[in-house]
C-alpha cells in the first residue's frame, strides 16, 4: 500500500500541488487523472522522490520515503518499477540489455538466471524475439511494452506508469491498459497510473483520483465517475464527444 499525506509543492511561488492526500491499495490499479498542468506528473515525481515536496510524506507500506539518505531508500527503490512517458529506454542498449539493466545493477543473479528472467518479462509483454533490437528500431507501442518489461523485471511491489497511452493509437492504448491491469492483478502489485485518457479511466480504474489546479477534487472509481456532479470533473469527463452523446442518450 502507498499512502501520500498532504503533499504540497510549488515552483517559483506557483502552487502546483496543494495538500494532496490519498491511499493506493495493493492489487489495485489506481489512476490519477486531470487536465494537463494540474500537477499529476509532479505528484508522481514527488512519490518517486525525483522532486522533493515542500510538505507532506509518502509512505510505502508504512515506511517514510523521505526519511534517511539514498542508501536507506535503496531498499524501497528496489521494490519500485516505473514506466516513463516516453519509455525512457537507454538508447545505447538493446531491448534485452534494457530489460536486464536493473538485474545487472541491483542483483547478484547469474547470467543464465538473468537471461531467463528477461525472456519471461519480454514474453509477458508480448515481445518475445525482439531482444536484439535497438530502441530506435521499434515502434512507440513496443517501447512502452519494453518499458513495462523493465519495470516488472525486479518483481516490484509498486508500479508507476506516467501517461502510458501518450502518443499511441487507440487500439495500442487499450492493449497497454489491459497489460498494466493484467500485470497488477497477476502479481498483486500496487499500481499508480497517471493519465488523462478516458478509455483508461473507464476500463482499468479500480480507484480514481481527480486533480484540478493542484488540489484533489474527487475520488472514486470507474463506476462512480460518470454519475458524479463535481463541475470540474464533469467538464473533464464529458469533453469527450462520444461520452457527452452517451450522456445525452443519443
Amino acid at each position, binding site marked *: 500500500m502507498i499512502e501520500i499525506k498532504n503533499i504540497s509543492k510549488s515552483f517559483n511561488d506557483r502552487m502546483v500541488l496543494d495538500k494532496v492526500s490519498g491511499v493506493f491499495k495493493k492489487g489495485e490499479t489506481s489512476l490519477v487523472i486531470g487536465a494537463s498542468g494540474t500537477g499529476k506528473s509532479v505528484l508522481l515525481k514527488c512519490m*518517486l522522490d525525483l522532486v522533493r515536496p515542500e510538505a507532506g510524506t509518502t509512505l510505502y507500506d508504512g515506511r517514510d520515503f523521505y526519511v534517511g539518505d539514498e542508501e536507506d531508500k535503496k531498499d524501497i527503490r528496489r521494490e519500485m518499477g516505473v514506466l*516513463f*512517458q516516453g519509455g*525512457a529506454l537507454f538508447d545505447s542498449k538493446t531491448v534485452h540489455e534494457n530489460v536486464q539493466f536493473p538485474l545487472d545493477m541491483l542483483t547478484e543473479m547469474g547470467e543464465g538466471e538473468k537471461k531467463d528472467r528477461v525472456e519471461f518479462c519480454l514474453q509477458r509483454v508480448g515481445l518475445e524475439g525482439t531482444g536484439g533490437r535497438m530502441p530506435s528500431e521499434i515502434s512507440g507501442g513496443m517501447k512502452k511494452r519494453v518499458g513495462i518489461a523493465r519495470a516488472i523485471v525486479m518483481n516490484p511491489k509498486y508500479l508507476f506508469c506516467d501517461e502510458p497511452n501518450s502518443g499511441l493509437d487507440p487500439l495500442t492504448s487499450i492493449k497497454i491498459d489491459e497489460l498494466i491491469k493484467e500485470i497488477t492483478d497477476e502479481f498483486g502489485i500496487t499500481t499508480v497510473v497517471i493519465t488523462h485518457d478516458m478509455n483508461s479511466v473507464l476500463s482499468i480504474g479500480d480507484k480514481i483520483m481527480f486533480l484540478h489546479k493542484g488540489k484533489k477534487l474527487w475520488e472514486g472509481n470507474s463506476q462512480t465517475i460518470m454519475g458524479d456532479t463535481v463541475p470540474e470533473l464533469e467538464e473533464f469527463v464529458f469533453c469527450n464527444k462520444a461520452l457527452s452523446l452517451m450522456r445525452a442518450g443519443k
Partner: protein
Amino acid sequence: MLSVIGRYLIFLGKLFTRRESLKVYWERFIDECIGIGVSSVFIVAIVAVFIGAVVCVQTRANLVSPVIPVYVVSNIVRDMTLLELSSTFMCVVLAGKVGSNIAGELGTMKITEQIDALEVMGINSASYLVLPKLLAAVFTFPLLAIISGFLGIFGGYLAGTLSGIITPEDYVYGIRYSFIPFNVFISIIKAIVFGFLISTISAFQGYNTRGGALEVGQASTSAVTNSCIAVLIADYLLAELLT
C-alpha cells in the same frame, strides 16, 4: 556566476559518492575510452600534422636572417608543438568534438527521462554516467597529446623537407638540439588537466539540461564555449606554474 561554480563543485562531489561496483565502472570506462579517445585519433592526427606543417612554413618565412641557422625552424616547431599545440590546441579541438558529444548525450538522456530512470532504480546517475567519461578523458587525453606531439613534429618534417625549406639532417638536428624532456611532461600534465575540465564542464552542462531539443543544442554550445574558456585560463595558470 558564483552559484554556477558552486553547483559545478557540488556536481563534482556527487561523482565520487554512492559509487557503483568497480566492475560496472570498468566496462563503462573501456567503452568511454573508445568513444572519447580512440574515435578522436583521426581528427587529432589531421590537426597535428597540418598545424606542424604550417608552423614550419610560417617560421621559415619569418626567419629570413642569414645569421639564424636553419635548424632553428625545427627547434621552434618542436617547442611550439610540445608546449602548446599538442596539448592546448588539441584540447580546444577536442572540446568541440568530445565536449559537445558529452553534453548532447547527457542532455538528451535528461530530457528523455533516462536519467530519471536511473535515479528511481537507486543508481547515482551522475556517478554512473559521468565518472567513466572523466576517467576516460584523463587517461586518453595524455595519450592523444603524445600522438599529437609526434605527428606535429612529423608534419613539420614533411612540409619542411618536401618543400625544400630545410634538409632532413637539419630538421632532425634542430629537434634534438637543446631538447628539454620536461616539456613532454608539461604537455602530459596539461592534457590531464584539460581532459578533466572538458569532461566535467561538458557533463555538467548536459546533466543540467531542462526543456527540449533546443535546450540540448544550447547545452552543447555552452559546453564547448565554457570548456574552451576554462582550457585557456588553465593553460595560462599552468604556464605560470610549470615554466
